[in-house]
C-alpha cells in the first residue's frame, strides 16, 4: 500500500490505488479531498456550560469562518451524521465523552484519580476537551462519506448552531450501536475474512482499553509526584524565616535555593505529563473508542447477515401468495448485507492503515517529547549543580588561598 500523503494543514487524504478499484456506489474512486481545515479553541466556561470556538477555513476558496458551539451542538452534529447517512459498513469516528464541567464533579474525578488523601485537585482539563472535539471534526471531515454531509457544512459555517429537532439525543447512542439482539452477534460468519476480523476485534478492544487505563495510572502517579514536589518546595521555603542571625543563615539559604530547583523539577514533570497526555494518552483513548466503533460496525454487519439468512429461509418456506413479498424482502436484505460488506472491507483496510500511521506518529512524538524534556531537565539540574558546587569549592579555595 502506498502511504497516504499527510500534510501539516490537514489537506488531503488519498486512498491507495487498490482501494480505488472497489467502488461502492458506482463510478471510479477519486481521491477524497477534505473541504475544510478546522481548529477548536478558546473553551470558555459559562456557569455550567462550556462554549468552544470553531475556526474553519474552506480549502477551495480560503474563506474563513468562526463560530461558537457547545458540546450539545457537537452531539447533535454526530446524531445528524449518523441518521442522514447510510452508516452500516462505516466505522464511525468515536464521539468524545461529555467533559466534566461542574466543580463538584471535578472534585470527585480528582479524588478518584489522585486518591482521596490528595490535598491538591486537578485543574480543568478543557484544553484536552478541545483537542478531542477538534480531532473528532477532523476525522469526520476526512471520511469520504461523512465528510460530504450537509449538516457538517452547516455546523462549521453557520453562525447560529443548527436547530435541534425534537429528537431525543440521549437515544442516538443506542441507535448507533443498533438495537442488537445478543443472539445475533455471536452468529458464525459465512466469510472467513470477516470472521477473523470479528475475533481479532474483540481481543483488540480489551488490549487497548487496558493499556489506556494503565497509561492513565502512570499519569496520575506523575501528577502526585508533581504535587509532592510542590509541597516539598513550600516546606523548604519556610526555613528562610527562621533565623535572625546572619551567620546561621547559611544553612537555611541553601535550602531555599534548593526549593527553586525543586520548582524546576515540578515544572519538568508537568510538561512531561501534558506531553504524555497529548501523545500516547490521547492516542490510546481515541483508538480504544475507535476499536469499539469497529466492533459495532462488524456487529451491524453480522445482524444484516442474520437478517439476510432469515429472509432466505422465509423465502424458501413462503407460500405462493407470500412469495413475491418474500422475494422482495430477500433482495433488500441481500443488498443491504452485500453493500455493507463491501463498504466494510474498504473501511477496514483504510482504518487499519490510518491506525497504524496514527500509532507510529504518537509513538514518535512521545519519544521525541521525552527526549527533549529529559535534555531540558538535565540542563536545568546541571545549572543548579554548578551553583551548589561553586558554593562548596569557593569556601575551600578561600581557605587554601589564605595560607
Amino acid at each position, binding site marked *: 500500500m502506498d502511504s497516504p500523503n499527510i500534510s501539516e494543514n490537514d489537506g488531503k487524504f488519498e486512498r491507495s490505488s487498490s482501494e480505488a478499484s472497489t467502488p461502492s456506489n458506482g463510478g471510479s474512486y477519486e481521491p477524497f479531498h477534505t473541504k475544510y481545515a478546522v481548529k477548536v479553541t478558546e473553551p470558555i466556561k459559562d456557569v455550567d456550560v462550556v462554549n468552544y470556538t470553531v475556526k474553519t477555513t474552506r480549502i477551495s476558496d480560503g474563506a474563513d469562518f468562526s463560530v461558537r458551539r457547545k458540546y450539545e451542538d457537537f452531539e447533535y452534529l454526530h446524531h445528524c451524521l449518523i441518521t442522514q447517512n447510510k452508516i452500516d459498513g462505516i466505522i464511525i469516528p468515536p464521539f468524545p465523552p461529555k467533559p466534566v464541567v461542574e466543580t463538584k464533579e471535578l472534585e470527585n474525578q480528582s479524588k478518584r484519580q489522585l486518591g482521596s488523601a490528595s490535598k491538591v485537585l486537578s485543574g480543568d482539563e478543557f*484544553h484536552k476537551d478541545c483537542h478531542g472535539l477538534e480531532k473528532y471534526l477532523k476525522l469526520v471531515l476526512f471520511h469520504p462519506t461523512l465528510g460530504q454531509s450537509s449538516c457538517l457544512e452547516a455546523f462549521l459555517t453557520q453562525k447560529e448552531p443548527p436547530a435541534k429537532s425534537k429528537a431525543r439525543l440521549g437515544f442516538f447512542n443506542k441507535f448507533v450501536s443498533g438495537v442488537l439482539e445478543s443472539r445475533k452477534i455471536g452468529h458464525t460468519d459465512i466469510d472467513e475474512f470477516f470472521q477473523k476480523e470479528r475475533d481479532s476485534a474483540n481481543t483488540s478492544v480489551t488490549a487497548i482499553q487496558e493499556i489506556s487505563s494503565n497509561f492513565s495510572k502512570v499519569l496520575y502517579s506523575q501528577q502526585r509526584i508533581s504535587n509532592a514536589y510542590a509541597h516539598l518546595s513550600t*516546606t523548604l521555603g519556610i526555613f528562610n524565616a527562621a533565623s535572625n542571625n546572619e551567620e546561621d543563615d547559611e544553612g537555611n539559604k541553601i535550602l531555599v535555593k534548593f526549593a527553586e530547583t525543586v520548582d524546576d523539577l515540578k515544572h519538568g514533570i508537568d510538561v512531561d505529563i501534558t506531553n504524555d497526555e497529548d501523545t500516547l494518552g490521547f492516542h490510546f483513548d481515541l483508538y480504544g473508542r475507535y476499536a469499539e466503533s469497529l466492533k459495532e460496525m462488524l456487529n451491524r454487519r453480522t445482524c444484516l447477515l442474520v437478517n439476510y439468512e432469515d429472509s432466505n429461509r422465509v423465502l424458501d418456506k413462503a407460500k405462493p401468495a407470500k412469495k413475491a413479498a418474500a422475494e422482495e424482502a430477500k433482495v433488500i436484505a441481500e443488498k443491504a448485507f452485500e453493500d455493507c460488506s463491501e463498504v466494510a472491507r474498504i473501511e477496514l483496510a483504510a482504518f487499519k492503515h490510518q491506525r497504524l500511521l496514527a500509532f507510529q506518529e504518537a509513538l514518535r512524538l512521545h519519544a521525541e517529547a521525552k527526549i527533549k524534556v529529559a535534555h531540558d531537565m538535565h540542563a536545568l539540574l546541571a545549572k543548579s549543580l554548578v551553583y551548589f558546587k561553586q558554593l562548596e569549592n569557593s569556601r575551600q579555595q578561600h581557605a587554601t588561598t589564605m595560607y
Partner: protein
Amino acid sequence: MATVGSGGDCSIGSGGRDPPPPLLFDEENEEDMFSSSHESLKVNQMDHGEEKDDDIFAEAKEELSLDSPENDWSQSTAKTEGLPQKVAVLPSVTAASVTSQSLPKQPKNGVKDISDDLDEEEEANKYSIEISVTDPKKIGDGMNAYMAYKVITKTNIPDFRNSEMEVYRRFSDFLGLHEKLVEKHLHQGRIIPPPPEKSVIGMTKIKMSKEESSSTEFVEQRRAALERFLCCVAKHPALQTDPSFVDFLELEGDLPRATSTSALSGAGVLRLFNRVGDSLGKMTYKMDESDQNLSWSCVIYYLQCSEDYEWFEEKQQQVESLDIQLKKLHSSIETLVINRKELAQNTGLFANSAAALGSVEEHTSLSRVLSQLAEVEDKIDLLHVNQADSDYYILSEFVKDYVGLIQAVKDVFHERVKLYKAWKDDEATLTKKREAKVRLELTHKADKIGSANQEIAEWEHRVEKSQEEFQAISKSIIKELKRFERQRLKDFRRAIISYLESLMENQQQLIKYWETFLPETKAIA
C-alpha cells in the same frame, strides 16, 4: 489523515488558572519552555555571587578543618551496597595547609577566641578514619535470633591498636555504645549522635522468617543507618578517641550485653519518667516553691542573669524552630518517596500492557515496536525504583538523622540547665551552712564550730566545682553548636549535590533509552 496534536492554542478562561505549558510538538508555539526558568536561575546566581563573599572569609578556617572526616563519610557511604549515589570526592586538604595561627573572631555571641576550637580540630584532622557496616547475618533461630553486622574500620588514629580491623556487632551493641557515650560526654556539653531507632515490628519479622533473608528492605535500611551513626560519631573530635568507641570498633569477640537496651526495659521506662519529670519541673516553674533547695523559678531568674543567657535563649529558640521545620521537611520527603515507588509500579503495569498489545497486533513492525516500548518502560520502572532509593537515602534518611541530632542538641541544652540548678543548689546549701555557723557563734557553741567550718570548706569546694562544670558545659555547648552549624551547612550542601547528581544520571539514562527507541518508531511503515 490528520496530524496529531495541534490543540496548543487552547487557553483556559475559567478560574484564573494559568494556561497549560505549551505543547512540545506544537510547531506554532515552538519555544524552549524552560527559557523563562533559565532566566530566573541566572538572575539568582548573579545575586548570590555578590553576597556570598562576606562570610566566606570568616568561616573559612573552620570550614577547612572539617574536611577530612567529611571525606571519610563520603567514602564510607560510597561503599554501601545498592546505593546509586555518586559522591564527588572533595579535594583533600592536608594538615600542612592549616597553620596553628588562630584568627580571633568577634562574633555577636561574646565568645572571644576560638583557638581552642581550632587546635582540637587540627588534631582530629591529622588522622583519618573510615568505617563501613556490611554483611548483615542472621544468627540463631526463633525468639533469640538477631542480626549481626560486620564493622570494618580503617584508620591511622594512634588510639587504635591496628590500622585495620573487623568485628561483628549486633544492634544492642550500638545502643550500648551510645549509652556509654552519653554517660561520659553529655554533661561535658557534647552533642552525641543518636543511634537508629528500635523496631519491634522489624525485628519480629526477622526472628520469625525462616530463610536467610538478609536482603530485606528493613535490614538494608538499618545497616545504612548504623553506618551513618558510626561515621557521625567518628566525625566528632572528642568522641573519636573515646575508649568505649575504640573498644567497639576493635575489640574481638562479643561485647558485654548492654542490658538496658531492650525495647521496654525498666531502666528505659525510668529514664522516660525522669525526662518527663524534668520537663514538668521546667513547665511548672511559675508555681510555688518546692521542697528542693532552689525552686525552678529561681533557677530561671538566675539563669537570666548569667552571661550568654541571651545567646542561649536565642539559640534554643532557633533549635526549636529548626526541629519543627526539619520534621515537616522529612514528612514532605516521605510523601515523595511513596509516590515515586507507586510510579515505578504503575510503569511496570504499563510495560506489561504494552507487551500484551504487541502480541495481539497483526502488523509485524508495529508489534515489534510495541514490545520494544514494553522493554523501555520496564527499564524506566527500574530507574524510578532507583530514584526512589535516592529520594529515601540521600534526602529522607538524611533529614531524619538531623531531626535526631536536633534532639541531641536539645538534650545538651537541658543538661546545662540541670548543671546550673545543681550549682545554685550547692550555693544555697553553702549559704545555709554559713548561716548555721553564725547561729552557732551567737549561741557560743564553740565545740560545734570546728565541724561547721569543715562543712563550709567542703561546700565551698563543691560550689566551686559545680560552677566550673556549668561554665565548662556552657563553653562547650557554644563550641559544639558552632561546629554543628558548620557541619549542617556542609552536610546539606553535600546531600543536595548528591541528590542532583542522582537526578541528572536518571535523566541521562532516560535520554539514552528513548534515543534508542526513537528510530524504531520511524521504521514502522
